[in-house]
């Protein structure tokens, strides 16, 4: 594989990942604490109507782009003659095991985005019909899924940046 092609692939993966995880950290470190104050003084609508839906749009599609570019990078750059790179990583085989751990964590995070965070945020933000009880429950599930992803992002990034022989510095 041409090194330039692999470099471009990794570059696109990092760009998408920054967009995804940057917005994840924005939600957890800025928006959620900020909304508590905004609810108290009646200014939350500006965030929930104009900011949150736009941030969630970039967030969920950046998650997909990150996963796809990551899978493509594994496929092109981590295979052997006997097994392709995606299979090697997800089966935690040999030198692909460390980055495979990162790939598993990223995949769990992608699942959380689409199966837990987005469906429940649609209820909370009023994008779909939901009772007050469903909104309260949905807010709790979305918060815990988002916090879980923030927690998982820490080991995920560790294994992504140290798990590849190309830039791991011999850690594994």
């Amino acid at each position: 594989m041409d090194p330039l092609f692999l470099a471009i692939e990794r570059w696109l993966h990092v760009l998408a990942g920054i967009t995804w995880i940057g917005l994840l950290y924005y939600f957890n470190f800025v928006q959620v604490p900020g909304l508590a104050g905004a609810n108290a003084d009646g200014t939350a609508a500006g965030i929930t109507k104009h900011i949150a839906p736009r941030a969630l749009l970039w967030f969920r599609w950046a998650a997909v782009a990150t996963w796809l570019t990551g899978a493509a990078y594994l496929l092109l750059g981590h295979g052997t003659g006997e097994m392709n790179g995606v299979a090697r990583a997800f089966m935690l085989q040999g030198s692909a095991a460390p980055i495979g751990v990162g790939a598993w964590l990223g995949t769990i995070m992608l699942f959380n985005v689409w199966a837990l965070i987005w469906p429940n945020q649609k209820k909370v933000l009023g994008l779909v019909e939901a009772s007050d009880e469903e909104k309260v429950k949905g807010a709790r599930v979305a918060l815990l899924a988002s916090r879980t992803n923030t927690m998982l992002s820490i080991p995920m990034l560790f294994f992504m940046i140290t798990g590849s022989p190309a830039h791991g510095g011999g850690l594994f």
Partner: protein
Amino acid sequence: MKNPLDSITGTITSGVVLTLVLYVFVKGFLV
């Protein structure tokens, strides 16, 4: 017992601990 994910500090601490646990596991059993 309080859920550590209810606070930012608990979330980050949990992530760091999980990183250490996975590092030991990968280093000791997979590579």
